[in-house]
């Protein structure tokens, strides 16, 4: 899976950048303790806009526990709640639901440091409903900044590591989805038009 990851990721990012070229408003670099990736933000219409994000999930990589990251995709529909003008800076507060899919590791043994969890290699597929809220800082130039928080509520399907003889899928709540909700997300947005 991870041998193909290095090929698949650039292709996914390129497709995200090029696919909606007829209507896109901005593309961006997604930065978070969750991972790093690319974002496409479609133009706002009647106080509603859509965001598509693909990023490498660095859970486990950030702690040097493993080398190969996971992948997460999210599409969200955002509602602009309020706008504030502070001098040259224009702030837009927004929130909205979305859908998350991916292939990632998960924290699977409760809270805190758990050795079994830290050393287990529980890669698996994730499917979740997401919710996020944030603020976009528009400085009037070609670059804007966006800070947001997001949470995912869903399931994580993976191979059961206690059953090595045959394929036995294990299904659980995707714990990182809600445990990482306080991880800030900073997106650097480049306006295309």
């Amino acid at each position, binding site marked *: 899976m991870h041998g193909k990851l290095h090929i698949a990721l650039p292709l996914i990012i390129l497709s995200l950048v090029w696919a909606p070229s007829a209507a896109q408003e901005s593309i961006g*670099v997604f*930065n978070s303790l969750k991972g*790093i990736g690319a974002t496409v933000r479609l133009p706002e219409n009647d106080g509603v806009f859509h965001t598509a994000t693909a990023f490498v999930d*660095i859970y486990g*990589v*950030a*702690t*040097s*526990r493993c*080398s*190969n*990251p996971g992948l997460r995709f999210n599409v969200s529909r955002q509602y602009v709640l309020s706008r504030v003008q502070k001098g*040259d*800076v224009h702030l837009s507060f927004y929130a909205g639901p979305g859908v998350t899919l991916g292939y990632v590791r998960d924290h699977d043994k409760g809270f805190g440091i758990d050795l079994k969890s830290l050393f287990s290699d529980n890669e698996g597929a994730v499917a979740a409903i997401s919710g996020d809220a944030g603020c976009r800082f528009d*400085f*009037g*130039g*070609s*670059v*804007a*900044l966006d800070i947001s928080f997001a949470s995912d509520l869903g399931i994580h399907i993976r191979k059961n590591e206690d059953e090595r003889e045959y394929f036995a899928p294990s299904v659980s709540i995707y714990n990182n989805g809600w445990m990482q909700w306080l991880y800030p997300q*900073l997106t*650097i947005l*480049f306006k295309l038009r």
Partner: protein
Amino acid sequence: MKRTLLLVLLLLPALALSARGPRFSYGLEWGYTGTFLRTHQYNYIYSEGARIVDNDAFWWYYSNGSVLADVGLDLGDKVNLSVYSGLLGVYSRRWMVPIELRTRWCPNGLENNGPLAHLGTSITIPTSTLQESTLRINAGGGYRFCVYRHLSVDFLMCLVVTGDHDLIRDPDTDFYVPSKNITKNYSQYWGVNMSVAINF
């Protein structure tokens, strides 16, 4: 080398004062390091009393992350000198705290869009021991987007060489070799770092 670095750090305020119009700068930087080459030089006596001399290099890809914060001074319109610190992942299950002195040169000006080059040297301290510091060197460049007044965003790529002292295991007992039996213990990690920085 460490003394030289310390001397430069102490001279930093004097340099700033001598430059015209110094301004403090602050920043955050985070990134990804793809380590592709590991070399080591070991010379130690193991449990049976014989000496082992082991010098080797091998290609091996490993992903790590880094998070740094910096404080510095703009020396003129194009040069910035900053001290960085934070956390660096180095190879497998290894974290280091660097104290880095980095020079950034923006030919178009520090507060304009344009390319930049940087060169940094750091003392790195492993979090596992908080001693046995080593050296780390990075050199590279990138592009700066000026966002608003003093706020800017950098996209950077650089070559990184990180030194380390490994925990050497005895080939017979698998215990760690005591430091009194080690004559030489150096390793180097070569990697490419891609990072994003926000300056304000």
